[in-house]
Structure formats: structure tokens, C-alpha cells
């Protein structure tokens, strides 16, 4: 591999950040790195919106019959929280920010294959997000992010059409991102970058893109049908008018279950990068980790009806989808074991990104294993639609995807901005998040087993003790999220300048300057073996 050890600072080299400064140069940019920053800013704003809704809900649930918000408001809050967090934060989080920034850098390309489409993708996202925010301002929707019919189509009298249109448009943003990644990974790899030399992050982005491209259109069409039903008053999914509500659930989950993997697969890719760098080892079982990503993406399409075991589907359907759901657990398990094995006899440094990575592995393990409860037919009929489900998917989505996003953000922050964040604060924030997360969501497993249903604004008094714990955890979590926002912004101005490779990580993105020049590389790089920690020079650390 072409190793550039250290570029001494000479008169401000041209980077993608300082090349032009006008607002138009950002809003009309075709540079994947700038678009990544646009996405990063937007999803942070949306995360704040969704997070605020979560905090209000947790405060409401502090006492069994709180009067902080009314039932209707509470319903709108969890709907907002779900829609914003799922469609406007988690789905684009890693792919559209870190993915957008890193895919070309990691494979040694100058940009994505279709820069204009990439920009279009951001504008679609912003349009969708604006519609959703407009919906919020006008009074919100109260259907839950799942838009179950016939409630959403015939009964709710909130701004459902607006919310659905927002999600519909954001869906096309995802499709375009996925399309761009697929083509880029196929056609834009630099010399020497064979498929089995691709960083594992690229494998996971590829798998994610498959889901983007093949699942999202089904959601789009389903939501369009719900809109049509509301507007025209025809009974597509309303049994009173001849429709079948369970068909909606089939079509919805055909997208929304794979969408879970859209959210977690990129995280799995990030963790593979972090674990190898901070133990200075090539991944244990590279090809197994890579193939597990693809297996998850493909098997993930076959399991959707495990969200519907008790919805009135046939017992036959339940059994088939249960066994398929267990299948998809295996590649996830393979990944966890391989990461753990990678640590064995490594040279482990517990820096901030590594703390997130190790936290991720633990939480993902718990989240994955509790998923088995829900795939087990006999247990699902007890804990389905209770807080057990909430706890399970927050372990995957927050404990998994958000932790990975935070870890990746810290890890590549010097590459993106050219600045180092304060390490001590980073570690503190990571520990606070880990602690706050578990305090928030572990009690919810117990709540669910005891039977507390989800989406309740008031509850039976005996559930209070766990709800208090959960709310306490949520406030810690809120602090944990505010800290990085503070010190990362601080580092932009006052952070130490990072060299091209401050963490001594392998990978093409670390061979170019930080921040990278507009065309990423001075000259087209040539890829060697990935994760070549055995031949890296650590003497100047």
C-alpha cells in the first residue's frame, strides 16, 4: 500500500473544506464529503427533535397517571419520535453521513459514481423532513410510525397524509443513496482493490444498499395506497369497505423488517473497523464477517411476518416465519464471535471509539438474544406489543446503531474535520451513554414481561418503579448526547490538528490528508491487503 507517513504542514493545503466558502458552494456541492456534512447537520437536528419527544414521553411516564401531556398529545409524541428516529435519523444516519464520506475514500475513488444524484438525495431528504416538521407544527399525526390500517386510513383525524408524504419522499432519498453506493462499489474501486480486499465497512454498506434498493419501493407504494385510501375514501385496507388490514401489515413489514437491517448493518461495518484499529489486528474471519453482512441482508427479507404472529395470520405463516427468523440470528452471532476473537491477543487501547465499539458488542449481544424471545412463537404471544419489544429494539437501534454511529463519528472525526476531539471528555461521554442507556432500557424488559403494553400514556401503578428507573436513565442519556455535541463543536475551533492518520489505522482513507483534498487523493492510490497491521509502522506514535 502506498503509505504516506506524514505530510508536514505547508501553506494551507487545499481541502474539501477550504476550497470554497460561499453558501452556494455548500448547497450546490457535488462533493460527497460536503454532502455527508450536509446530512450530518440535518440528521443531528432531526435527532434533537426525536430526542425531545422521547424526553417528554419519559417524563410523562414518571407517574402512572401523569397529567404532563394528554392522551392525544402523547400519541402524537410517540408517533413523531418513531417517524423521525426511524426514517429521518436511523435509516440515513451511518449510510448518508459516514457512508457518503467514506465509501469513495475507502475504495480509492474520487467521488461517488453519481454526485448529482447524491445531492438530489439530500434535497429529497430535506423535503421529506420539512413535510414531517410541518406536520408536527400543524398538530402532528397519531398513528404510530407503523401507520397501521384501518386506524391510519379511516379513523385517525390527524395529519396522516402529510406525515406519510414526508416518509414517502425520504424513501426515495434512501433509494438513490443505495443505488449510488452499489454502482460506486462495483465500478469505482481503485487498482488492486479486489472484492475480498474491501474494508468490512464497505461490505456492510453494500449489503445495506441492496435493502435500500429492493425494499424501499414497496414501502413507498404501500404508503401511497394508504394516502389514496384516506383521500378517496376507498377501502384498500379498511375491512368496513372491503379491504384487508393484514395486507397492509404484510407490505409494510416487507420493507420495515429489512429496514431494521438498514439501521444495524452499517453499524456492524463501523464496529469491524474500530475493533481492528484499536486492537491492531486484522479481523478474525474476514470473509465470514463480510458474507454474514450479505446473508443478513438477504435473509432479512424472509422474516417480515414475525411482526404479525398474533395479528391474525395463519398458524402455518407463523411457523414458517418463525423458523426463518431464527436463521437470520446466525450470521449476527457469527459477527459477534468474530469480533470477540479479533480482540484475542491483540494490542487493545481503550480510546473513545473503542469504548463505543466494545459497548456496542455487548449491547448488540443482549439485543440480539432478546430478539430470539420474539422470534419464539410461544413467547411472542406473551410479550408482543409490550415494553419487551421496545427494550429489544432500542438495544439494537440505540445500543447498536446509535452507539456505532457515535463510535464511527469519533473515529473519523479527525479525518472529516482535521481536528482531534478531547479524548478525556470522549471517554467520559461514552461511559455515561453506556450507563444511561442500560438504566433506561433494561427495566423495560422487565416491564414488558410483566405485561405493560407499549404506547400507553398512563399505566397500572405496579409498573411505576421500573418506569422511574427508565426515566432516570433517560435523563442521563440526554446528558450523554449533549456532551459530544459540545466538545465536538469545541474541537472544530480549538481542537489539536490531526495528521493524516492520528490513530494509526489501516485503510486507504487514512493515506490521504485530513481533511482530504477535493478529489480525495493526490493521485489514484493502489490498494494492497486490507488491515495490514502487521506491516504498519507504529514507532512514531
Amino acid at each position, binding site marked *: 500500500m502506498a503509505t504516506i507517513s506524514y505530510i508536514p504542514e505547508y501553506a494551507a493545503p487545499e481541502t474539501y473544506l477550504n476550497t470554497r466558502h460561499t453558501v452556494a458552494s455548500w448547497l450546490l456541492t457535488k462533493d460527497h464529503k460536503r454532502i455527508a456534512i450536509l446530512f450530518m447537520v440535518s440528521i443531528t437536528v432531526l435527532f434533537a427533535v426525536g430526542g425531545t419527544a422521547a424526553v417528554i414521553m419519559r417524563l410523562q411516564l414518571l407517574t402512572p397517571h401523569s397529567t404532563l401531556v394528554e*392522551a392525544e398529545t402523547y*400519541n402524537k409524541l410517540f408517533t413523531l419520535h418513531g417517524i423521525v428516529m426511524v426514517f429521518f435519523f436511523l435509516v440515513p444516519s451511518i449510510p448518508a453521513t459516514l457512508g457518503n464520506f467514506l465509501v469513495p475514500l475507502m475504495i480509492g475513488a474520487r467521488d461517488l459514481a453519481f454526485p448529482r444524484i447524491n445531492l438530489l438525495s439530500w434535497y429529497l431528504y430535506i423535503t421529506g423532513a420539512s413535510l414531517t416538521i410541518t406536520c408536527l407544527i400543524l398538530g402532528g399525526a397519531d398513528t404510530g410510525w407503523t401507520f*397501521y390500517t*384501518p*386506524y391510519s386510513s*379511516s*379513523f385517525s383525524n390527524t395529519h396522516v397524509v402529510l406525515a406519510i408524504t414526508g416518509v414517502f419522499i425520504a424513501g426515495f432519498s434512501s433509494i438513490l443513496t443505495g443505488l449510488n453506493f452499489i454502482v460506486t462499489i462495483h465500478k469505482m474501486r481503485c487498482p488492486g482493490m479486489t472484492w475480498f480486499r474491501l474494508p468490512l465497512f464497505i461490505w456492510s454498506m453494500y449489503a445495506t444498499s441492496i435493502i435500500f434498493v429492493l425494499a424501499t419501493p414497496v414501502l413507498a407504494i404501500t404508503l401511497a395506497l394508504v394516502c389514496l385510501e384516506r383521500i378517496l*375514501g376507498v377501502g384498500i385496507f379498511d375491512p368496513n*369497505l372491503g379491504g384487508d*388490514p*393484514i395486507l397492509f401489515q404484510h407490505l409494510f413489514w416487507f420493507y420495515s423488517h429489512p429496514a431494521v437491517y438498514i439501521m444495524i448493518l452499517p453499524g456492524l461495518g463501523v464496529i469491524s473497523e474500530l475493533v481492528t484499529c484499536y486492537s*491492531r*489486528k486484522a479481523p*478474525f*474471519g474476514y470473509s465470514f464477517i463480510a458474507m454474514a453482512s450479505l446473508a443478513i441482508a438477504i435473509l432479512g427479507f424472509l422474516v417480515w411476518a414475525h411482526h404479525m404472529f*398474533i*395479528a*391474525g395470520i395463519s398458524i402455518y405463516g407463523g*411457523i414458517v416465519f418463525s423458523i426463518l427468523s*431464527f436463521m437470520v*440470528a446466525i450470521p449476527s*452471532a*457469527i459477527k*459477534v*464471535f*468474530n469480533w*470477540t*476473537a479479533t*480482540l484475542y*491477543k*491483540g*494490542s487493545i*487501547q481503550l480510546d473513545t471509539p473503542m469504548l463505543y465499539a466494545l459497548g456496542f*458488542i*455487548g449491547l448488540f*449481544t443482549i439485543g440480539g438474544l*432478546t430478539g*430470539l424471545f420474539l422470534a*419464539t*412463537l*410461544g*413467547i*411472542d*404471544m*406473551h410479550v*408482543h*406489543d*409490550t415494553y419487551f419489544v421496545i427494550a429489544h429494539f432500542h438495544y439494537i437501534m440505540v445500543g447498536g446503531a446509535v452507539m456505532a454511529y457515535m463510535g464511527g463519528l469519533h473515529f473519523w472525526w479527525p479525518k472529516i474535520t482535521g481536528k482531534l476531539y478531547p479524548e478525556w471528555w470522549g471517554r467520559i461521554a461514552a461511559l455515561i451513554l453506556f450507563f444511561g442507556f442500560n438504566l433506561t432500557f433494561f427495566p423495560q424488559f422487565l416491564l414488558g*414481561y*410483566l*405485561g405493560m*403494553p407499549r*404506547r*400507553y400514556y*398512563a*399505566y*397500572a401503578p405496579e409498573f411505576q418503579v421500573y418506569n422511574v428507573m427508565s426515566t432516570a436513565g433517560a435523563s442521563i442519556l440526554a446528558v450523554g448526547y449533549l456532551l459530544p455535541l459540545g466538545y465536538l463543536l469545541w474541537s472544530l475551533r480549538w481542537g489539536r490538528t490531526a495528521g493524516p492518520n492520528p490513530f494509526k489505522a489501516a485503510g486507504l482513507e487514512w493515506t490521504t490528508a485530513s481533511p482530504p483534498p477535493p478529489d480525495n487523493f493526490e493521485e489514484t492510490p493502489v490498494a494492497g491487503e486490507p488491515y495490514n*497491521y*502487521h506491516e*504498519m509502522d507504529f514507532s512514531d506514535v
Partner: protein
Amino acid sequence: MASQVDHLVLFLVGVTVFFSLLIFGAIGWFAIRYRRRSPGERPQQIHGSILLELTWTIIPFLLTMVMFGWGAKVFVAAHSPPDDAMEIFVIGKQWMWKIQHPEGRREINTLHVPLGRAVKLTLTSQDVIHDFSIPAFRIKQDVVPGMYTTEWFIPTRIGEYHLFCDQYCGAKHAEMAGTVIVTTEADYQRWLAGDLTAVPPAVAGKKLFELYGCNTCHGQYGPTLAGLYGTQVEVIDERGIRRTVIADEAYLRESILYPNVKLVAGYPNRMPSFKSTLSEEQLLDLVQYIKSLSGAAATAPYKGPPLGPATQPGGAEPRIENPPFANYRTNQ
């Protein structure tokens, strides 16, 4: 049922705790044992092991298959009510549960059941999807409009238990909760007798039966309904194939709504559909009545009001003049 679910949960908790401890332990141990001791440290590379990969593929696979098999067994059992189960009907609507006992007592948001008897709930919804969940009994089932679903249980301990709507159904979703009251058989009977105005569904069903003139055909030139329930009926099914089905509730409901899907062999296809005529409650009443029929009741001479053209011998389809959107948006 509850204990079966709990045993299964216990097994999964065991597996979860084992693997969580394994992973957390390994991570913790490696992080300490192999911490970076000098900045320039360069560890030995290990690229993988097929044997290990196979181990941690096959063992989890086998474990999940045990979970699947066990879980499916419990699930199927939970969907196979015993024949002697007493049947209670539940109708969900925004935002209450209307519950109907076979003897006629009706209650709202409370479900009285006697200790030790198998209880089968037949559920349907009047508006959106609800879910009838009794956490203490470890069961729940979505309650879907336009469809009958069932769940069953045997109460094993006297007491009061929560009953929740678990599927989000609108503003007062959280208030669509109630209580299951398990009493002794004697207390249950006393409670049943408590409401003197109660009209048993079978009696209400009889009125409907007469109102719609069902007895003008059934028992005369239509198939008799007396003693029909629970027997085997020879029918011509949807593909024109002759086969035998059990005349259970689902069959009766289906035959009232879609008479020709399973036409009794040897009878002409004359009966009109009652899909838009009968409410879910009325359907339940009719089904209960047919279940209760003795030989005399079905063939009793007709004494009701004059019949519409629909049910005249050889008559045409009844004209059911509901405007297309009659039910629409009004039942919010």
C-alpha cells in the same frame, strides 16, 4: 399455559445470560489481558479458524432450532382450545371491550371466569385493530375487524388480573383496559344469575332467526340446523369438490356470510348472503342460537312479521340498500 410459557422463557433467559456473560467476560478479559503495553506494540496476526467458525455457527443454530420447536409447540397448543371449553364472545371497539357470556350476561371491560374451566374467547372488532391481552395468562391476540380470532386459557388461581388492549387503537388506547376476575364456579354461577334482564345470546339469536325468516327454508327445503353444531357436514366446497367439514363457529359464521362457499351437499344454492345485514353482535347471537338448537326449535312454524322478498322461496337476492359509505367515518 402460563407455566409452559414461563418454562420456555426461563430456557431462553438461561441461554441469554450464558452468552451475554460469555461475550462480556471475553471482552473484559481480553481488554485487560491484552491491553496495549507500549505505544509501538505490534501483535501477532490471527486470520481465522474454520473450525471455530463452524462451532459458533452450528451450536447457535442447534440452540435456535430447539427454541423454534419448543416455541412452536407452545404456540400451537395455545391455539388449540379443548372441545369442552366454555365460549365467551368479545367485541372490541374504541375504546372498550364488550363481553358476552353464553348464558346472556354481558359486561364491559370486565371478564368473569370460573376457576379451573377452559375458556375460549372468540374475538372481533367493530372498528380498528385491537389486541386482547391478559399478561397473567401469557396470552394475547389481535382483534381484527371483519374476522374472528380466538384465544383460550384455563384460570388456575382466584384473583383479579389485568386485561389490556395491546394494539394501538387511537386516543384512549391506554384506557381500553380492564380486569379479569377469576372466581369459584359457585361464585361465577351466582354472578351469572345476578343480572335478571340479561338476554342470553341464544335467545336474541332466536329472535333474529325468526326476524330474517331463516326457518322458512331451513328444516323444510333447506338443510336442517337442528343438532347441526359440532357434527360433520358433507359440503360442496369452493372448487366443487365434495368433502366433510366440522360445523363449528367459524363454519356457521362463514355460511351465514357466504352461504355458497361450503354448500351443504344435495341442496340448491338459494341462500342470500347476510354480510351487510348483520352486525358482529347479531352474528354471534345467531351462531349461539344455532348451537343451542334442538330438533323442535328449527322446524317451528313461522310466526314472525311478513317476510321480505329476499327469503321467499326461489326469491332473488335481497336488496340491501346501505349507501356505499354508510359505516364510514361515522363510527369514530
